[in-house]
C-alpha cells in the first residue's frame, strides 16, 4: 500500500525553481561516480541521451535495447520538429510563452513546475543538438530556420526536413556510441527487459531476455532508468512501430510503480486512413501539411462523386467554418474529434468512406508545384507510395490515428517513480504533457529528460547511497524474478491453440479503439471492461505460439507483449471511466457543451490519477495527486 504521493515539487517562483532544485540536489564526486552502475532500458531519444550523459559524467552504464541498433528506436519517426523558446524570430516567444502554451495545450492537467522546466530546458537542447551535428534547416545567412507548427502562433519549431526525429536520434545515438567506444557504456542490443527487480524496497536491477538465444539473465544496478516509450500499440493500429510495447513499463507497474493517467492518449488527425484487415500499422502525414492543406468533406450524405466534381458550394470546410481563429490549425484533439464527427455522420470519403480530404489545390494554384514540392515533397511521395494516388492531382485522404500516449509511469519532479531508484524518462513517464501533447513537444521532452534532468536527479539519489552496497544478482529477489520470467516464457512457448497472437492483438485493438478511442462513454467503457478480460481468457486458452524459446522467435516475443497490453487496456478503460470529464485527448460524451466542445471539471478532476497494481484480477487502487495552479489560471480552451 502506497502512502501519500509526494511529487517533491520545488519551492519558490517558477522561474527559479529548477535552478534552486539543481543546487539542492546532492553531487557525487568523480571518484565515486565510477562505483555506481546505472541501468538504462531503451535507447531512443530519452534513453540514448541519458545513457550518453551519464557515461560522460563517469558512471558505469549498462544500456539495453531490443533493437539490433539504438538508431532504430521509434523516435526516428517524428517528422515535424522540436520546439525551443529561442525567440530567434523576434516574434514574441519566451520561456514563459512556451510554458503557457504547453500547459494550456495539455488542458491544465500537468504540473506547472514540470512544464516550466521543460520550456526552460528547451534552449539548451537546441544548442546541444547543433553542436553534435544535427543538420537543422537553415536560412541563407547560415543561421537556423524556424517554423510555426501545430497551431502555435509563434515560430519556435526547429526542423530537419521531414526527419527531425531521425536526425535528433542520430545525434543522441552518436553520443551514445562515443561512450560505448570509450568503455563507459556497456551496450546490450537485442535484449528485451522482461522484469524489474525490486530488492529491499528499491529498484535493484532488471531481467532481460536475449532475443537471439532466448537466454534469460539478471543485471544489477544502483539505479534503473526506463525510457521505453509509449503504449499506443494497445490499439493494434497506431502510428507506432511494430515492436513498440508497454512490457517494460507494465512489469515495473506490477512490481509496484504507479501508472498515471493511462486514459490520456493522443489521436493524431493527419494519418492515412486504414485499408483492410491486412493493415499492420498506420502512417502519419506530418501535421505541417495542415499549414497549407484545407480539410473538407462533401456537404451531402453519401456523396460518392470524385472530389474534383464536387463544386465549391457543396464542400464543407468544417474546421474553417467552426473555428475562425485557428481554422485548419486547431490542436490535434479538436481536429481529430471533428473528423470523427463528419465520418460518423456518413460524410466520409474514399473507398471505405473512412477519411476526410486534405486538399492542396489552393496552394498549388497560388505557389506552383515546385514550391509545394520543396516544402512537402517527401510527404507527397510517401503518400503516393502507400496509396497509389498522386496528391499533386487529387486531395489526400486522411483520418485520425493513435499516435502518442501522454499517460505513463508516475514520476515525481525528479523523474523518479514511487519505487526508490526507478527513474522514468521520455514518453514512458506521464510528466509533462497533461491530457494532450502539443506538436513538436515530444522530442523536446525526451531530450530534456535524458540530457538535462535525469543526469542530475539520478546523481542526487546515488549520493544518498554512497557506502551502501546495493543488492547484487545473488540476492533472492533476482532468482525469484528470473524464475518467474522463465515460467512465463515456458507457458507461452507451449501454447498451441488455434489462433495467432496477431489475431488476438487485432481483436483487442478493435475493442480499445471502439470504446476508448476518440470519444468515450460510460456505457462503452463498461462494455470494454467486460469484453477485455473475456478476450484475454480466450487468448490464454487458445493462442498458438509456434517454435522454440531457445531461438529468435517473434511470435513468442509478441505473445508476452500482447498479454501486457490486455492488462493495460483494462486499466485504460477503468481510468477513462473514472475520469468523468472531458479534457484533452480524453473526451467523454456525457461531458460536452451544446456545440459538442469538451467540458472539463476542475472541481473534481484537477488531479493526476495514479493507479496501483493490486494483483491479477483484482481492482487496482486509484491514488490522486492534486494539481495546483499558482501561475496560470485554468480556463476553457477555446480555439474559435
Amino acid at each position: 500500500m502506497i502512502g501519500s504521493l509526494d511529487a517533491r515539487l520545488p519551492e519558490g517562483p517558477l522561474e527559479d525553481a529548477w535552478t534552486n532544485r539543481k543546487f539542492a540536489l546532492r553531487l557525487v564526486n568523480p571518484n565515486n561516480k565510477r562505483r555506481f552502475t546505472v541501468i538504462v532500458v531503451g535507447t531512443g531519444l530519452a534513453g540514448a541521451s541519458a545513457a550518453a550523459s551519464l557515461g560522460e559524467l563517469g558512471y558505469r552504464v549498462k544500456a539495453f535495447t531490443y533493437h539490433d541498433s539504438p538508431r532504430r528506436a521509434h523516435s526516428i519517426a517524428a517528422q515535424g520538429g522540436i520546439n525551443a523558446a529561442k525567440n530567434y524570430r523576434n516574434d514574441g516567444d519566451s520561456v514563459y510563452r512556451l510554458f503557457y502554451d504547453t500547459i494550456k495545450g495539455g488542458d491544465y492537467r500537468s504540473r506547472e513546475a514540470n512544464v516550466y522546466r521543460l520550456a526552460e530546458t528547451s534552449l539548451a537542447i537546441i544548442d546541444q543538438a547543433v553542436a553534435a551535428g544535427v543538420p537543422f534547416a537553415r536560412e541563407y545567412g547560415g543561421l537556423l530556420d524556424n517554423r510555426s507548427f501545430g497551431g502555435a502562433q509563434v515560430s519556435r519549431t526547429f526542423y530537419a526536413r521531414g526527419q527531425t526525429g531521425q536526425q535528433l536520434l542520430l545525434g543522441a545515438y552518436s553520443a551514445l556510441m562515443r561512450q560505448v567506444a570509450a568503455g563507459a557504456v556497456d551496450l546490450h542490443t537485442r535484449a528485451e527487459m522482461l522484469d524489474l527487480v525490486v530488492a529491499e524496497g528499491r529498484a535493484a536491477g532488471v531481467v532481460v531476455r536475449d532475443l537471439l538465444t532466448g537466454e534469460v539473465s539478471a543485471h544489477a544496478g544502483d539505479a534503473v532508468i526506463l525510457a521505453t516509450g509509449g503504449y499506443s500499440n494497445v490499439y493494434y493500429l497506431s502510428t507506432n512501430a511494430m515492436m513498440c510495447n508497454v512490457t517494460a513499463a507494465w512489469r515495473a507497474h506490477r512490481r509496484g510503480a504507479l501508472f498515471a493517467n493511462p486514459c490520456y492518449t493522443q489521436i493524431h488527425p493527419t494519418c492515412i486512413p486504414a485499408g483492410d484487415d491486412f493493415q499492420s500499422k498506420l502512417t502519419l502525414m506530418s501535421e505541417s501539411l495542415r499549414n497549407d492543406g484545407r480539410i473538407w468533406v462533401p456537404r451531402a450524405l453519401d456523396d460518392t462523386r470524385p472530389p474534383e466534381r464536387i463544386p465549391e458550394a457543396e464542400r464543407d470546410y468544417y474546421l474553417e467554418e467552426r473555428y475562425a481563429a485557428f481554422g485548419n490549425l486547431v490542436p490535434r484533439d479538436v481536429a481529430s474529434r471533428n473528423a470523427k464527427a463528419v465520418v460518423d455522420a456518413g460524410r466520409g470519403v474514399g473507398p471505405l468512406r473512412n477519411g476526410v480530404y486534405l486538399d492542396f489545390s489552393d496552394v498549388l494554384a497560388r505557389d506552383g508545384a515546385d514550391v509545394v514540392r520543396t516544402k512537402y515533397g517527401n510527404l507527397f511521395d510517401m503518400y503516393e507510395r502507400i496509396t497509389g494516388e498522386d496528391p499533386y492531382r487529387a486531395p489526400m485522404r486522411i483520418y485520425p490515428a493513435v499516435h502518442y500516449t501522454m499517460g505513463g509511469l508516475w514520476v515525481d519532479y525528479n523523474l523518479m517513480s514511487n519505487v526508490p531508484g526507478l527513474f522514468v524518462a521520455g514518453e514512458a513517464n506521464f510528466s509533462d504533457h497533461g491530457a494532450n501533447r502539443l506538436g513538436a513537444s515530444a522530442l523536446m521532452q525526451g531530450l530534456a529528460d535524458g540530457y538535462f534532468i535525469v543526469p542530475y536527479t539520478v546523481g542526487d539519489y546515488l549520493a544518498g547511497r554512497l557506502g551502501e552496497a546495493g543488492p547484487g544478482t545473488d540476492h533472492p529477489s533476482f532468482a525469484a524474478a528470473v524464475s518467474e520470467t522463465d515460467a512465463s516464457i515456458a507457458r507461452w512457448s507451449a501454447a498451441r491453440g488455434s489462433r495467432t497472437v496477431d489475431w488476438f492483438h487485432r481483436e483487442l485493438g478493435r475493442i480499445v479503439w471502439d470504446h476508448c478511442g476518440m470519444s468515450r462513454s460510460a456505457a462503452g467503457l463498461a462494455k470494454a471492461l467486460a469484453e477485455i478480460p473475456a478476450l484475454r481468457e480466450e487468448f490464454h486458452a487458445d493462442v498458438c505460439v509456434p517454435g522454440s524459446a531457445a531461438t529468435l522467435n517473434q511470435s513468442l516475443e509478441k505473445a508476452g507483449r500482447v498479454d501486457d497490453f490486455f492488462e493495460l487496456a483494462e486499466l485504460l478503460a477503468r481510468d477513462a471511466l473514472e475520469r468523468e470529464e472531458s479534457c484533452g485527448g480524453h473526451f467523454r460524451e456525457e461531458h460536452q457543451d451544446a456545440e459538442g466542445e469538451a467540458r472539463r471539471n476542475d472541481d473534481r478532476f484537477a488531479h493526476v490519477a495514479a493507479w496501483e497494481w493490486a494483483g491479477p484480477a483484482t481492482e487496482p487502487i486509484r491514488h490522486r495527486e492534486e494539481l495546483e495552479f499558482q501561475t496560470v489560471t485554468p480556463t476553457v480552451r477555446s480555439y474559435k
Partner: protein
Amino acid sequence: MSPTEPSGAAHGAQGEPPDGPATLNLRLRVWRQDGPEAPGRFETYEAAGISPDASFLEMLDVLNERLTLDGQEPIVFESDCREGICGTCGLMIDGRAHGPQKGTATCQLHMRQFSDGDLITVEPWRAGAFEVIRDLAVDRTALDEIIAAGGYISVNVGAAPDANLVAVPKEAAECAFDAAACIGCGACVAACPNSAAQLFTAAKVQHLNLLPQGQPERWARTEAMVETMEQFFGSCTNHGECEEACPKEISIDFIAWTNRDYVRAKLKNRKLAGQS
C-alpha cells in the same frame, strides 16, 4: 499537365467500387535457414488473395498467419517503423535490395508493383559481414562498429555554445543533410558485388565532415571509420550498385569525397606524427 488539372486517371483508386480491385495470387520462393550455422534452403509458398494495396511486408504477415495456423513456423523477417525510416527491414527481392521500386525501402514497397501469377524470390541480405541469424534476418552490428570508431562529434552534454553562434552556409547544411539521410539499412552492402560498405561509411563521414562543427575531428574520424569499415567489409570498385539500391538515393559522390578526405587524413596525421 498542370498539377491542379483534374484527371480522371488519378482518381482511379478512389473511384473503385467498395470491394476494391482484384487480388493477386503469387508464388514465393523464400530463403529458410534455422540459424547461423544451419544450412539454408529455398521453400516455395503460395500467397493467394493478396490485395494490391498491401505492402510487401503485410503480404508476408498474411502468409505467416497462414503458416502458423497450418502448424508451421512463420518466416522470420525484421521490420519496425514500416515508414521507411528506421532501416530495420531489408529483403533481397528477385535479386534486388529492397525490390524493384527505386528509392523505396522494403516496408514501403506495395504489392501493386507486382502482377498476378508472379513468382517472387525473397532472400536475406547477402554479405560476409552480415551473418544470417535466421531466415531473412541478418546481423548488421558491423555498421554500429563503424559509428563507434568515430561517427560523432565529441561534445559533452552542457558544453555546447549557443546554437546560432556558428553560421553554417545553407548549401553545406543541405549537402550534409543529403548524407545524413542514410537510414543504416545495409542495402548498399547487399547490392555491392564486393559487399563493400563504402556508401554507408561515406554518408556517415560526410554528414559530419561537411559541417563546421565536424572540422576538429575531421581527419581522425575519416581514418578511423574507413579503417574500421575495412576490417569487416569488402573494397569498393565503383560499380555504383549501392546508389541504385539506396532507399534514400544517397549519391556515390560522397564516396569520392571520403576517399579524398582519407588520403588527406593520412598526410595530415603523418605531419602530426612528425611534429611530436
